[in-house]
């Protein structure tokens, strides 16, 4: 299957991105509208991000990291002769009833910000793949789009790590569960940041390609 032009991978990705964009747009509008009218709505963006359900019984679901206290929960494998295995670096979501206070507002804003950022990035990608579908990849806008996407990827990862840290810290300071302990540790995905940096470099390659294409078009 060819990469550019009609009936190519680019045109297939265009269709998928269009669907994702409309899905995000509908989710964003629905979340805002239903929250404003106070109806019950649950929007889940990411298992590692916060989710908010509004309505009469407000519930929050925040990402948490935890570890198992070995004395309370022993992990054994008698058939293998192991009696001191350990579960560690566990992740999950803590769901609890919450009041419509600052925490709810903060999580709801994070959710809306998440969706808005996704919408914006998808829109940049749509523009990029549209040019690939039309077989004109080296246009000045593409270098700019890739640069924006790269910064968005880096920002998204830094924001995600910060949010998870603060949500875990909140859980650690306010909640307790027998045999388990909540952790608050920074969980930055370095690969995501590196991916962002790689996209930044590719953006520069596109900028140079655009310059060369422009020069080529004016060479008679």
């Amino acid at each position, binding site marked *: 299957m060819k990469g550019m032009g009609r009936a190519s991978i680019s045109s297939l990705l265009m269709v998928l991105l269009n669907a994702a964009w409309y899905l995000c747009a509908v989710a964003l509008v629905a979340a805002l509208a239903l929250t404003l009218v106070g109806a019950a709505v649950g929007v889940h963006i990411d298992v590692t991000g916060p989710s908010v359900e509004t309505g009469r019984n407000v519930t929050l679901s925040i990402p948490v990291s935890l570890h198992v206290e070995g004395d309370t929960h022993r992990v054994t494998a008698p058939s293998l002769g192991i009696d001191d295995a350990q579960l560690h670096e566990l992740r999950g979501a803590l769901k609890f009833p919450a009041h419509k206070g600052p925490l709810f507002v903060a999580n709801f804003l994070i959710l809306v910000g998440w969706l808005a950022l996704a919408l914006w990035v998808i829109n940049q990608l749509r523009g990029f793949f549209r040019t690939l579908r039309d077989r004109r990849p080296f246009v000045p806008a593409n270098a700019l789009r890739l640069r924006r996407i790269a910064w968005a990827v880096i920002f998204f990862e830094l924001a995600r790590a910060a949010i998870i840290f603060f949500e875990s810290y909140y859980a650690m300071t306010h909640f307790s569960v027998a045999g388990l302990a909540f952790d608050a540790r920074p969980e930055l995905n370095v690969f995501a940041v590196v991916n962002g940096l790689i996209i930044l470099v590719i953006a520069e390659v596109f900028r140079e390609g655009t310059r060369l294409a422009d*020069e080529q078009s*004016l*060479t*008679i």
Partner: protein
Amino acid sequence: MAIRIRLDQVLLDRRITLTDLADRIGITIANLSVLKTNKARAIRFSTLEALCRELDCQPGDLLQWTRDEVATSAETA
């Protein structure tokens, strides 16, 4: 740019239209127009050769170097 194409003058001297020239050397009128209006960044040897052949002239008849504003201001500074 300091190098200018004198295509319009040469065409006028030889009483040839841009359309005729485009047909003879196999270059689109749009591209010849870019050349004629000095918007081109570069010219291929093959294009120059075709122009010289059809217009019966030397490359020097088509190209002209002039002092541009940047060069002039640099010299006066």
